[in-house]
């Protein structure tokens, strides 16, 4: 009754073990000591808790999970799992673990660790933000509600077998097992840390945390026992925190720093880019990102679909990509181009001021109206909000820009009837995993249109919700293409209702010293930003 996924367990593994042809232009060298800087201190390295883009990639490298991604791509591969099978109804997933994988405290990793780690991520006491990802596992509600400590839907018949039973089919389940919250941790180390596991992490990933001087530096060393041969490539990396991006860049140019994690400040971008070594220093890569303006469907006049469509035609997206120094492309649909399901043929609403004015008049607002546009207050977001304000003025819409701290914009967005328009810059959606469903539920589905939610358009289309649920039930891998196409259609159909103005797909920029090897995709990895496992130092 089980269907074996030979394709995944063999070919994909072979891919994971061999160096990728994508960055074969420099010979991969083992060894090297790398210095990386960030402005903010690292909040936590607890995989059940950490959820910002800086600690995300470090947690990826400290721990391992049943599933992972081929470096630089959104392609799933088994990691701790040696092989797995899915039942035809899509409700049972059986994983065989690799033999001989060890935590960095020396103990062998067994099936019960997988169960413990996921239960821990759901346990309300952990205060983890990712609990909801595991919602499809049977018994989730009891653990999440605090009435049970063990998850009914995970069985471990022996030390190398984990069986998941789902309460509903979930086509994204393999991605769920690849996100950080599914990282496997040893119970004894969590308990020994007495609530401080985030500062004293123990995992089975490519690196081990050797030193953490709060507010100054973290030192990661290669895990010699890591289960994939020749991974990682560098011996050690030191993360220096509290480093102003501008100063980090100056240090990088002097050779003191190898990677400036915060990238290039907007004011410096063109100068660096046009400098002789610019091409070698700046790496940018596409990420699963869409920047958008939400049009609150519960606030007049945005309850009128014609008004929303008119505004979609009024925004000069090319100008906004110029404000972003060309680090972005104009978007016409919610999904970013890198995301499976993206519809290349879709054109959306073209920029057309006259047509926008006409449609606005048709909607009953020939002279426009007054509204409020929220934005975060860090550069370049207020400048983009001003560009949007000017575009709106051209069709007679007077928008007052409210640039606030991020937490306050998020709060306004999640309060019913509060924010008519929000420019998402600085808080825009970047997918947790490369599956189109991740762009729906929280930000466009009915479940996100609640107090404190992230669906700031307050858009709730019951029919689309039903189609989304149907698409996510298609967990049969043979139907993957059909499911992808259906998701693509859901997103282009959403655009008929125009709850958003999709504006840009931004590329992330990282600055690296010329001695660092590998192409941009491993410095701006779609699933983890900097891929510490895959970067390497060139021969000098």
């Amino acid at each position, binding site marked *: 009754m089980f269907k074996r996924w030979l394709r995944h367990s063999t070919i994909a593994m072979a891919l994971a073990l061999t160096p990728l042809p994508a960055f074969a232009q420099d010979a991969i060298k083992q060894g090297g000591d790398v210095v990386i800087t960030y402005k903010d201190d690292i909040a936590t390295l607890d995989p059940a808790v950490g959820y910002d883009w800086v600690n995300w990639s470090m947690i990826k490298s400290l721990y391992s999970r049943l599933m992972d991604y081929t470096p630089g791509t959104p392609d799933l591969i088994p990691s701790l799992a040696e092989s797995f099978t899915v039942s035809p109804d899509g409700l049972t997933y059986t994983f065989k673990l690799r033999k001989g994988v060890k935590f960095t405290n020396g103990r062998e990793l067994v099936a019960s660790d997988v169960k413990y780690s996921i239960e821990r991520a759901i346990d309300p006491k952990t205060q983890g933000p*990712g*609990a909801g990802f595991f919602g499809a596992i049977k018994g989730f509600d009891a653990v999440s509600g605090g009435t049970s400590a063990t998850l009914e839907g995970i069985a471990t018949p022996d030390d190398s077998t984990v069986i998941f039973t789902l309460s509903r089919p979930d086509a994204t389940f393999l991605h769920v097992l690849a996100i950080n919250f599914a990282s496997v941790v040893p119970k004894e180390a969590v308990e020994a840390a007495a609530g401080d596991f985030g500062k004293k992490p123990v995992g089975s990933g490519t690196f081990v945390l050797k030193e953490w001087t*709060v507010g100054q530096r973290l030192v990661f060393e290669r895990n010699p026992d890591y289960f994939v041969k020749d991974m990682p490539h560098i011996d050690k990396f030191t993360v220096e925190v509290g480093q102003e991006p501008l100063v980090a860049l100056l240090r990088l140019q002097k050779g003191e720093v190898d990677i400036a994690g915060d990238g290039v400040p907007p004011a410096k971008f063109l100068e660096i880019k046009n400098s002789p070594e610019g091409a070698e220093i700046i790496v940018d890569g596409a990420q699963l990102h869409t920047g958008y303006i939400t049009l609150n469907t519960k606030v007049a006049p945005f309850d009128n679909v014609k008004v929303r469509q008119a505004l979609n035609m009024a925004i000069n997206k090319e100008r906004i990509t110029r404000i972003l120094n060309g680090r972005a492309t104009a978007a016409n649909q919610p999904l970013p181009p890198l995301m499976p399901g993206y519809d290349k043929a879709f054109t959306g609403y073209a920029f057309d001021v006259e047509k926008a004015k006409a449609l606005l008049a048709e909607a009953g607002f020939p002279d426009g109206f007054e509204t409020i546009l929220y934005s975060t207050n860090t550069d370049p977001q207020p400048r983009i909000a001003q560009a949007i304000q000017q575009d709106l003025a051209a069709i007679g819409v007077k928008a007052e820009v409210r640039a606030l701290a991020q937490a306050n914009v998020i*709060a306004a967005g999640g309060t019913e009837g509060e924010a008519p328009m929000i420019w998402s810059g600085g808080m825009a959606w970047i997918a947790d995993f490369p599956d189109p469903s991740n762009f729906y539920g929280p930000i466009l589905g009915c479940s996100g249109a609640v107090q404190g939610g992230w669906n700031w358009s307050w858009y709730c289309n019951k029919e689309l919700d039903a189609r989304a649920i149907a698409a996510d039930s298609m967990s049969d891998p043979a139907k993957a293409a059909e499911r992808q196409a259906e998701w693509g259609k859901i997103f282009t159909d959403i655009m008929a209702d125009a709850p958003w103005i999709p504006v840009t797909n931004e590329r992330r920029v990282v600055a690296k010293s010329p001695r660092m090897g590998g192409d941009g995709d491993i410095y701006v990895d779609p699933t983890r930003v900097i891929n510490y496992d895959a970067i390497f130092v060139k021969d000098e």
Partner: protein
Amino acid sequence: MAFLILRRLVQTALILFGVAAITFLLLYALPADPARMIAGRSATAQTVANIRHELGLDQPLLSQFWNYLMGLTEGNLGRSYAQKTDVGALIAARLPATLILMAAGIFVEVALGLILGVIAAVRRGGPVDRLVMMASFVGVSAPQFVAALLLLYVFAVTLAWFPMSGFGTFAHVVLPATTLGILGAGWYARMVRSAMIDVLNQDYVRTARAKGLSSARIVFRHALPNALLPIIAMIGIDIGQFMSGVVVVEAVYGWPGIGQLAWQAIQQVDIPIIMGVTLVSALAIVIGNLVADLIAPLIDPRIRAR
């Protein structure tokens, strides 16, 4: 003296209670929801509710405040929402860097301020005086980040005399302390100058001159000590100010002080850290002023007599 200290201790407790109460109420008046910030974008309503409950944010405001105060009496500043670790430990880890920068910064500003202020006062009305006053005006008005970046660019990037960023050796402290010192020295120079001018016009100084004392002795032995009082009071205030963190200078030089911690906590609505830093700096201001009050009578016997 014992009575003064006792009175000050009671005052300190009251001030800290007031600061705690006001900060707490202000933070809860914010529209931002800490549980939401921790939960991030993908969390379900259930997850957010769980986090809110675990943090005790679903309790009435007064009982939350009461619990916080009870923790304080045990020396417990609470746990950071975002970092999930003790606030006391986080602040303690950054205290050495903050104290070093504070001491070095105050040393530079006081030394510079005294020298320039005395020179300006003695040469009152002359070109030197005008130059010093202009320089101090620039120092007082220059934004910290401009001065910091300028010094960094000249002395760390171009001349490479000092490291650009970081903490650990004497060389690391020079530029941040100089930045703070140059900017702060302006205030001190102006204050020393006006206090000195005031003192130099007094009868006893004229008497000293009439006695035929050297002008160096008049200035340093007779006039300066009497002009020092406001300076000492100002150092007391600076101690408190530097303890609450010099965010901009810390950011430019990558200095791991309390300001960095506070700035990051504010962005994340990490209320326990914001509360902790506020209380520690309030305490520092109180202690700074107390120390200034205790030193003053040692310098000026008139205060002792009172």
